[in-house]
């Protein structure tokens, strides 16, 4: 907190904080207001006297009805959830084990391997989708959820591995040594001591991985084609933007409902998540 008199708190803390909050939250506000604004208000030029961009007195649920009635939005939600949960689970499992091995087992070449894994994370997806689509076609996985469940870990595993490597390094080595003297085999020390202590780190990796796969666009756009296989980000764009016509109301309604699960996931784990990012293990 800023110390000192009231004006100092206003100038150096509350005012900048307020401006920052407005800046960050404005897109969400715009999304919500557009969702409930009737078409008649959405498509009028800005110089009309009746143009009121920031509020509406005639809220409508027409866009929601369109989104859930005329498109397969519910199926997109289900697809996205399924793909995000399964690919997060796979990546977390591999990332935790790999992170533990790279930070603790001190085998020859561990540092090199760690760096290599990180480098693979740096290859842009916009290049990687070309060879990946070849592989997807070879195994006939195109237009199925598995095309994404198996390709998301290509960037999620390196990400989780690096996050967990850092977190495992912050867990005191003595805890594990003590467990091994107490009679635990290496895997028992990992399972009963190191992993429970690393739960905040695992949760942060989980939230990041889930958000990354929930929002992923390029692979989903390339690998999926039929409307009932699509995920929310791709479905909303491809079904609600036709040519150069933007169906702003349903589009924003789709964006709103697409961001709710991520927001819930964040707020549910936020306490653990914060302590994970700041790395707090006290002896």
């Amino acid at each position, binding site marked *: 907190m800023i110390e000192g008199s009231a004006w100092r708190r206003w100038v150096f803390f509350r005012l900048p904080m307020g401006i920052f909050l407005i800046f960050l939250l404005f897109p969400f506000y715009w999304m919500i207001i557009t969702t409930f604004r009737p078409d008649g208000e959405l498509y009028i030029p800005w110089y009309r006297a009746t143009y009121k961009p920031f509020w509406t007195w005639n809220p409508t649920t027409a866009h929601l009805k369109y989104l859930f009635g005329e498109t397969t939005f519910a199926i997109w939600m289900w697809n996205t959830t399924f793909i995000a949960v399964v690919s997060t689970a796979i990546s977390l499992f591999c990332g935790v084990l790999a992170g533990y091995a790279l930070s603790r087992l001190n085998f020859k070449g561990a540092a090199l391997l760690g760096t290599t894994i990180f480098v693979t994370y740096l290859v842009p997806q916009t290049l990687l989708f070309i060879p990946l689509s070849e592989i997807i076609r070879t195994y006939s996985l195109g237009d199925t959820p598995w095309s994404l469940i198996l390709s998301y870990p290509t960037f999620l595993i390196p990400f989780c591995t690096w996050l967990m490597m850092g977190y495992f390094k912050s867990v005191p080595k003595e*805890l594990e*040594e003590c467990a091994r*003297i107490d009679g635990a085999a290496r895997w028992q020390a990992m399972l009963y001591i190191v992993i429970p202590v690393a739960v905040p780190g695992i949760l942060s990796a989980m939230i990041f991985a889930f958000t990354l796969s929930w929002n992923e666009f390029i692979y989903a756009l390339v690998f999926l084609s039929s409307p009932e296989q699509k995920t929310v980000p791709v479905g909303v764009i491809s079904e609600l933007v036709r040519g150069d016509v933007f169906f702003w109301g349903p589009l924003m309604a789709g964006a709103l409902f697409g961001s709710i699960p991520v927001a819930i996931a964040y707020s549910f784990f936020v306490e653990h998540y914060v302590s994970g990012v700041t790395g707090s293990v006290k*002896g």
Partner: protein
Amino acid sequence: MSSVQIRDVRKSFGTFEVLHGVSIPIEDGEFVVLVGPSGCGKSTLLRMLAGLENITSGTISIGDRVVNNVQPKERDIAMVFQNYALYPHMTVADNMGFSLKLRGARQEEISSRVNRAAEILALTPLLERYPRQLSGGQRQRVAMGRAIVRDPQVFLFDEPLSNLDAKLRVAMRTEIKELHQRLKTTTVYVTHDQIEAMTMADKIVVMHDGIVEQMGTPLELYDKPDNQFVAGFIGSPAMNFLKGKLKVNGAATFEGPNGIKLPLKTVPGNSDGRPVVYGVRPEHFTIADDGAEAEIVVVEPTGSETQVFAKLGGEQVVAVFRERHQFSPGDKVRLRPDPTLVHLFDETTGKRMNA
């Protein structure tokens, strides 16, 4: 309980050898303290005994079994770490019962043994707390509780008191010693604090640069240090050292810096003119008319005794008196070392010369 034999143990990290052949016999039920300055290899040796570092050469046996290639969990030892290493996600009771649970003990047995250990260490009211809810001293006791619950062959302590404040350290020192007298489990205790070593040990092992300088009871080490290193390491304030030569014509004397003459009782034969280091403990100085003249620099009263820093032949020495002399800086006094209690060391090798 078990004896422990460390025979000619060496340890290298890469090409760098940190232990150069260490042999220490430890008897059943003995309390052995490994003491030395940081980097002397004492913690490495303890970790090798625990099985956390492998042994480059030599053997370590616990009881009759050579444990060089035995996993830590099979060695039947318990270790208390400097930072306690309590499992943060477990209650005190679970921390103490963890090893028994791993061994597959029944729940009733675990709780009865945990309760007994908790009683010994006055931890009973804290059993359901988590480590983060405990003070430093309580955490220390939980770490000890976790060790005694198992009733192991050997206890290992790795500088367990260094994270405590001075008052608590003294209290825990007594507590650990009392615990050992009660349980009589073979104990190896590592510290850099010579006071801890002196007060707790049955046997002290002084280590320096990867070798054992001397082993013995606390008073043996204090009264008859084998070499200048041990003499300077054990005792507080440290022993005074003066460089000079032996004179054996007539009464044996030591000729120190700037020609000062200090008394000696006996000297080894054929040593006239030999360069030596003359060692006197601070409490072995007395004020006497036939002493060497010294000029007082600083006087530090502690109540029970007074430490006096003085210049003797240009060298600073410290003397401790239980009597309350009225000294002030600049005063000239005559200091006389007790000739029966002085130590002589070879100037080049640092080895003890007198009996």
